[in-house]
């Protein structure tokens, strides 16, 4: 099978100044006094893995282990300090809910806006509109400004758009925890659908049950390094052990 995502020896280093310097004057003075202190923070330390086309891969790990950074690298938001990230195909990132939503616009306008953020034209979104409304169950609210929506409604809309544009790669960052029980089931069903349709999915979740249910493989990150990589079931089992 083709490799669709490839991370090769990726290191992500954040340089954090100990004091926040955001004025020229301060910068100049500190530079002059040699007081510009940096603390390098290694978010990811030389990780490599690849994802084959059609695979569903889960990322697990404790907070601060580098899961979200990995997703951001894959979706192109961050550029690695060293190493390379190669991605073939278009991505629908659900890094956070409602990326590119404008809360003053109506749900319908946001569908177009969000679609265009992912690179789809007005006409293309028109053809998907029916399905999006159908899936999100927001029939009566499409012309309401989304600032009046509940977080569950926004999650439904966002998930609905992201999955309806039929991306080659879907990136999901802990959003399956939102919405009611029924909608969660629906989301899972949709992801299963997409998987069988050949979509590659990358999921971050703290719920190991979910990872086990959905994923083929899992990557366990700890402090920016890969602790374990393999069958989702095995990795999750190991991961659960340290919980106790």
């Amino acid at each position: 099978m083709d490799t669709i995502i490839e991370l090769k020896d990726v290191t992500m280093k954040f340089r954090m100044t100990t004091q926040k310097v955001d004025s020229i004057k301060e910068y100049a003075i500190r530079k002059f006094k040699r007081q510009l202190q940096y603390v390098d923070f290694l978010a990811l330390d030389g990780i490599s893995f690849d994802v084959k086309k059609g695979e569903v891969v889960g990322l697990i790990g404790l907070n601060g282990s580098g899961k979200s950074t990995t997703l951001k690298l894959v979706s192109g938001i961050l550029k690695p300090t060293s190493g390379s990230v190669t991605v073939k195909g278009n991505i629908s990132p659900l890094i956070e809910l409602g990326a590119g939503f404008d809360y003053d616009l109506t749900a319908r306008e946001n569908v177009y806006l969000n679609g265009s953020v992912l690179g789809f034209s007005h006409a293309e979104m028109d053809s998907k509109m029916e399905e999006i409304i159908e899936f999100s169950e927001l029939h009566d609210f499409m012309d309401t400004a989304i600032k009046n929506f509940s977080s569950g409604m926004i999650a439904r809309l966002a998930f609905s758009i992201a999955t309806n544009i039929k991306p080659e790669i879907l990136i999901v960052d802990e959003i399956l925890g939102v919405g009611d029980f029924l909608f969660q089931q629906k989301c899972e069903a949709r992801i299963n659908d997409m998987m069988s349709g050949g979509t590659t999915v990358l999921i971050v979740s703290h719920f190991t049950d979910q990872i086990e249910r959905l994923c083929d493989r899992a990557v366990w990150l700890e402090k920016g390094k890969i602790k374990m990589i393999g069958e989702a079931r095995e990795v999750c089992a190991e991961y659960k052990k340290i919980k106790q």
Partner: protein
Amino acid sequence: MKVKKKIYAVSVILFFLVTFVISVYSVSKDNFFNKTNNYPNKIFMKPDIVFDGWNEYDGTLTSVFDPQIILNGADCYVHSVRISGSSNFTDEKIRIFYTEKEGEYFSPEKTRLLDYNIINGGMYIYPDMYVYSLRLDITEEANVDLTLKNVELNDNSIVFSFTGLVMQCLFPTILFAAVLGLIIFGSALSSYVQVFKKFIPLLQNLISRDLKVKYRRSVLGFLWSILNPLLMALVLNIVFSKLFRFQVEYFATYYLTGALMFNFVIECTTGSMMSVISAAPLIKKVYIPKYLFPMQKCAFAFINMLFSSVAVVVVMLIQGVPFHAHILLFIVPMLYALVFAYGMGLILAAMTVFFRDIEHLYSVWTTIWMYLTPIIYPEELLQSSGLAVITKLNPMYYYVHSLRNVVMYGTFPSAIENIMCITFAIVSLALGLCLFKKVQDKFILYI
């Protein structure tokens, strides 16, 4: 692809021909159809006012009662001067004095016997030379009731030089060709263009969102873009016609054209400056080419400018400024300025991400820049006060000046002005793109 190429070639050639025909028409109209062409900004003293400062020079040259025309700081190649009045002109009656440098006095050494031509009672004189200042003394014939109606200064590089004509048509054509080429052959160019094309819908959406947000909940909506400059022009017109007496004909139009250009560039740059920072929520969640945000703000400012330009037309109608076919070419200086402002916007946006104080510094600079640019005062003021170097180095001067030439005075900006406009635009764009590209990957860490 072949069809596309043909369309491309044909439209570029057509565009060139159209601009060429317009410029030839304007030249022939001025010279053969004998219509007058006003350069009010070049006439420091009104022609029918007798200038009485001659005593300083040489008392024997002329009598104080004889009409004189003084063109101070003309600083150009004067091809022809036209004088018309109630008297019938003959030769011998006109003496022309000139200076070649700033600060030089008119002197008997610098007089010229001139060729002349009388058409329809108007007299054409052809100094056909470069002058800094020009003085015409009308002797003997002149009596008190002589009125001088029009003085034409024809920049030779515009009027008769064929190369000049080609040059000035060439630059808009190059620009046109570049833009059209991008549109037609976009897919063939590079991955950058492919990415850009993918995000065009987003650009459209962002711009339309800006427009919606700007005019939401205002009764008059986009009419404010027209009303705002109109009211400003009204106020300034009152202030400047009552308090300060600058000799600028059609002051309101003069001010508005300048302000239109200036405000457009400022709106582009200040909008771009904050664009990347305010797009933080988006940039943090999805991959979007970051140059899109300054572009969005510039396009938004361009649309606003188009609305506001209606105000200029309204004021021109009210003041009775003659309309020329050239007015349609106002888009050319605007496009130059757009490129310039986008480049500047990229630089500002990139710098502001790292140092927020750029925002405050730039607002100070904006004020300074406004006073350095002849918007509310006549262009000659800088030259006559020895600050001509400012106008030479100030990109905004060229954009403002070109726009006024096209809109108010019905002339093409000269080839050299076009070159200056384009040079500033390209340099700014190149610098902006380089800087932006270099630091854009670090944005995410600072916003």
